[in-house]
């Protein structure tokens, strides 16, 4: 029998799993819904954003959540000229690591500018919230250069 004559069949598996967020991630998500960014303070006083339930190095419990500023500095970035179908963004944008004021760890999100010439490491950006928020990281539409009329 030729290999191409052997039977094959598709196998599609789908199940709607659920997830419980717990006290820390749950608070972070709820904060997004209220347009507030919450990080978490480590024993040495540094602040992790996004927050984690346990210290990434010492595994200690982390419980002290603190509000983070909504502006910060781009620490590095890449340009996305042609977003793919599954991207949350339809137009060209940067994906950047952003160190927000009050946080000690940068987190990744989009910087919404028209072309790569407008991007530079070290630039200041401010958060742009969606009008309707639901408790999801995409409640943040993206970041825009600071002073560009964010409301």
């Amino acid at each position: 029998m030729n290999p191409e004559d052997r039977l094959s069949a598709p196998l599609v598996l789908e199940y709607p799993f659920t997830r419980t967020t717990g006290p820390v991630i749950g608070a972070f998500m709820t904060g997004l819904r209220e347009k507030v960014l919450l990080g978490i303070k480590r024993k040495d006083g540094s602040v992790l954003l996004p927050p984690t339930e346990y210290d990434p190095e010492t595994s200690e419990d982390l419980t002290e959540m603190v509000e983070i500023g909504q502006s910060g500095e781009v620490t590095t970035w890449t340009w996305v000229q042609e977003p793919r179908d599954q991207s949350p963004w339809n137009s060209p944008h940067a994906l950047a690591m952003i160190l927000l004021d009050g946080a000690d760890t940068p987190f990744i999100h989009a910087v919404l500018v028209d072309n790569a010439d407008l991007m530079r490491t070290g630039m200041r950006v401010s958060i742009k919230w969606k009008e309707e928020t639901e408790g999801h990281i995409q409640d943040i539409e993206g970041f825009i250069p600071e002073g560009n009329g964010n409301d």
Partner: protein
Amino acid sequence: MAAGGELAAVIGVGMTKFSATRGDVSMPGLVREAAERALKDAGMVWGDIDAVVMGKAPDFFEGVMMPEIFLGEALGAVGKPMLRVHTAGSVGGSTALVAASLVHSGVHDRVLTVAWEKQSESNAMWALSLKQPFQVSINAGAGGYFSPIIRQYMEATQAPELIGCMVAFKDRQHALLNPYAHLHQPDLTFDQVVESPMLWEPIRYSETCPSSDGAAAMVIVNETEAEKSDNPAWIHAGAMRSEANNFPGRDEVNPQASRECAADLWNQAGISNPREEIDAVEMYVPFSWYEPMWLESLGFCERGDGWKLVESGATHINGGDLPVNCSGGVLSSNPIGASGMIRFAEAALQVRGMAGEHQVEGARKAMGHAYGGGAQYFAMWVVGKDKPTT
């Protein structure tokens, strides 16, 4: 010594309360709770642990791929070896044995082992009934798979029809003595068990395990560390076996892998008469009839006599000479991946004298048992109050 290599002992046990839904904690929070309790029992902190060995049922259950990776921080495994074990329902037992082997071998001195399941965020029935191309699907989950095997046992041994109900009623009574058990049914009567709906004939609803969230953890250490503990549970023997779940001529009621695993276990432990020498058994019984079936397979009695032990009350904590599942067993709490480890941990609690209201008076040797898949993976250990002798 029996299990080979360095002596090893359990000096810390931790469990969560088992319940249908632990909506207050994330998956990391769930394993953390059990692990912290085990550490506290052992008088240790995260930094004292050399390695972490984790187990859970198939990834399909929660849809989390490689959970061992995202649970590293919660289990204090950062910068340490972390292993994941996977042998379906027996995984909690296999995980404990892998953790013990790291101590027996002398590779590590203090190992944390954890097993868990968050069934409320998953669907075991779905995960166990995935339709595969070119294969017949009965879409019946575990109960549908095991019910014809149970019938085969009933017919072969001429067991009275209500033996399974007796096991279920007994384990639910035992569960009332265990604050961690999922099912607490103080008003349940034997007649209610008998009258409960037939789910997978001949298995009634009340003869099946619940679907639980929960985790169990143990700290397993070498001889030097164990001697610092007031009440270590010394590991006298540990054995694992597996076989294919389907082949012509397979003895599904009493699988070869089960028999040989038990024979190896008793041999390692120097036990010639398990019924006489074992004081408490924690056996993996997700469907009631598996108690008499495993009693026979494990050599606690002759073939065909398992149901007679049940009928005589021998396996009841009150008055029985071979109490089985004093914790309430899998029939009262079933966070699948953790269920095997709960058996092993409960055996350890018994010989440490720490089982609370479900303590078997004066228990010196106890057996923990787990099976998984289509009754094809087996993991067992014997723990003792006394150090094993060669």
